[in-house]
């Protein structure tokens, strides 16, 4: 373990971004679904105020890793995580840690849009409400409006805030989910293919939003679009068959990757 860490430090020294502190550190993270091992000793650090993209072919464990960052894996019965993940130096799998607080600090947007079968307003205001982020109704209204605006949805729904969130189209639903996550203003936002249901315009908006959010938040995004990874992220990590193949500056990754497999994948030679 010590050796691995030292190697990582060495590698970090080689990189330009080595001055940016780590927000989250993943060490030897393995995930098992029952007997099936889905992640193999992944060592991946997430830098603060940076967008980190996770790429890789389908089923390689991107979502699994992402979910282990805010312990959403806890909710899967037979799922077991080993290794160590820290957030600001605290081990998030420490028994003392409050997973609820963790998830408020590490928010999440899912692959399939999953709005609550409630009104749009209630969907967005739910998070702020349970975390006590608004002092008054006006406060809450403002948070809702701002979040919807950030998610590029405000204009489409401002006249029907009190209609059901499930009545929106797929794309609108996903943007609603993003708005809902943003409304809690977490420190880290995990996004699992957040744009897979969005059209290019909305995608561009979300990408812009990600850009904007980066100033204050740390973002980890799973995407299957290499272009998107290139556009939005500063760091990219490539997974394959449950292994972390390579983690690098995005620029470097897409121009001159260290690992031949990354090269092959980016060139579309396997998947």
């Amino acid at each position, binding site marked *: 373990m010590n050796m691995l860490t030292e190697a990582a430090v060495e590698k970090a020294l080689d990189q330009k971004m080595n001055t940016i502190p780590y927000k989250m550190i993943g060490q030897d993270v393995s995930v098992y679904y029952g007997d099936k091992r889905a992640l193999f000793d992944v060592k991946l650090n997430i830098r603060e105020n940076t967008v980190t993209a996770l790429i890789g072919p389908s089923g390689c464990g991107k979502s699994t890793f992402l979910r282990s960052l805010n312990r959403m894996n806890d909710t899967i019965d037979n799922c077991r995580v080993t290794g160590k993940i820290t957030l600001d130096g605290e081990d998030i799998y420490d028994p003392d840690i*409050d997973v609820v607080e963790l998830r408020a600090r590490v928010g999440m947007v899912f692959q399939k849009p999953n709005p609550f079968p409630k009104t749009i307003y209630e969907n967005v205001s739910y998070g702020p409400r349970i975390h*006590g982020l608004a*002092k008054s109704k006006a406060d809450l209204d403002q948070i809702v409006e701002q979040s919807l605006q950030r998610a590029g949805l405000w204009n489409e729904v401002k006249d029907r805030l009190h209609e059901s969130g499930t009545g929106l189209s797929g794309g609108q639903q996903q943007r609603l989910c993003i708005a809902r996550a943003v409304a809690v203003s977490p420190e880290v936002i995990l996004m699992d293919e957040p744009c897979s249901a969005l059209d290019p315009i909305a995608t561009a908006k979300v990408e812009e939003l990600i850009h904007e959010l980066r100033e204050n938040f740390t973002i980890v995004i799973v995407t299957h679009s290499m272009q998107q990874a290139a556009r939005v992220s500063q760091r990219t990590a490539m997974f394959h068959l449950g292994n972390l193949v390579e983690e690098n500056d995005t620029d470097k990754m897409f121009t001159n990757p260290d690992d031949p497999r990354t090269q092959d994948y980016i060139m579309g030679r396997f998947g």
Partner: protein
Amino acid sequence: MSTSIILLCLVVLGALAYVAARSRAMALAGGKPSALHSRPGYYGAYAAIWSTLPALIILCIWLAASPGIVESAVRDAFPDDVKAKTAAEQDLSYSMVATIARGMNLLTSDEISALGSDTAAIQAKLNGKGVPLAGEPQPFMIDAAKTLNAKAAGSRMIMTAVVFVLALGGAFYALRGIAPRFRARNRVERVMLWALLVASSIAILTTVGIVFSMLSEAIRFFAAVPATDFFFGTVWDPRFAGAGGSSFGQFGLIPLLLGTLYIGFVAMLVAVPVGLFAAIYMAEYASPKVRSLAKPLLEVLAGIPTIVYGFFALVTVGPFLRDLSAQVNGLLTGNYGNFIQAQSVLTAGIVMGIMLIPYVSSLSDDIITAVPHALRDGSLGLGATRSETIKRVVLPAALPGIVGALLMTASRAIGETMIVVLAAGVAARMQINPFEPMTTVTVKIVNQLTGDLEFTSPQTLVAFALGITLFFITLCLNIYALYIVRKYREQYE
């Protein structure tokens, strides 16, 4: 202080603690709730729980335990000649002492001292207060009763003190512990979780209660009648012994058990198809209007008292089936004799089946409706007809839930009494013709319990043996059913 006043005080204290803790949390946060770990209400709830829950628990334990402790103390003080008597006689003496003590509480201290130790006068006085004594008390009982009252009062005083100390201490402790990063919500939720756990333990306690409320009497039954005669006997005739049998009669379980299963089976044969098809129609075909009308209407069937069904079976369905069979028989063979008895397995099964329809239909309807729409779209998009979609996609996805509903229906069928009594009779017979009368275990349980029979004889006690046997049989069936459900469960989404 009486228990209800203590409770009231605790409630008030809890409310005060809530308010105090809430405002303290707000003050610590500087009016910014997001600076707190939990919402302010959780801090309030936390303090309220600390101030009431420990006190309540101690109160309950004390109330449950102290009579026993006081009793043993009082009993220890009984004169030696009383102690020499049998345990049953001592119990009697003690219950008399307890009654006297209770009665004395209704008297003023002047009255008590005026009575002195005049036992006859005490009996008369207590009778006058509406407290009956089994006989004239013995002198030692008066003293014992006085001791009892004194001890009980003392215990109550200490209890009150302890409870209040706990309540105030708890409130103080909770208030002191409040800090902005204090995880109040987690604590409160842990208590909620415990509350949920306690709720689910009630089911277990019920089972324990059922077993214990029947066990001792069942054992008395088995002391009189050999277990093998009961479990493997094929004749039910509690008043007449078979050749070489026991002197009481024949308590063969098997005919009752067969009747139970047979009638239940026929009932399910009616209820399951009708209920399932009704559920499918309501969930998949009917317009919301029809559904919102048909569903509650069918539910009325579950609410009609079973005695009404019973008379319906007796007066209408039974004779109808009998006459129908006579007609059919006449048309086929020329002999207008009925082959269906007016009271039969069939009659009971049909009528009970009707009663059970809503159990199947309403529950299944909810479960079918809950199957995600995407699954239906997937199937319809492949060119499946609606019925194919239902049969091959929706029902399999809903199966675990439906099996649960069916299990409950079957359970209800096994537990039903009145319909069987009136529709299938009380004759315990062992045969396989559904057109003949049979009877069920529950019918016999009710009849043996509520009759004019001697309550100490095996004829009454057999009800308890039947109850406990049925309990374990259904338990086995349920374990098997769980195993089946596990095996075929399919998870969607």
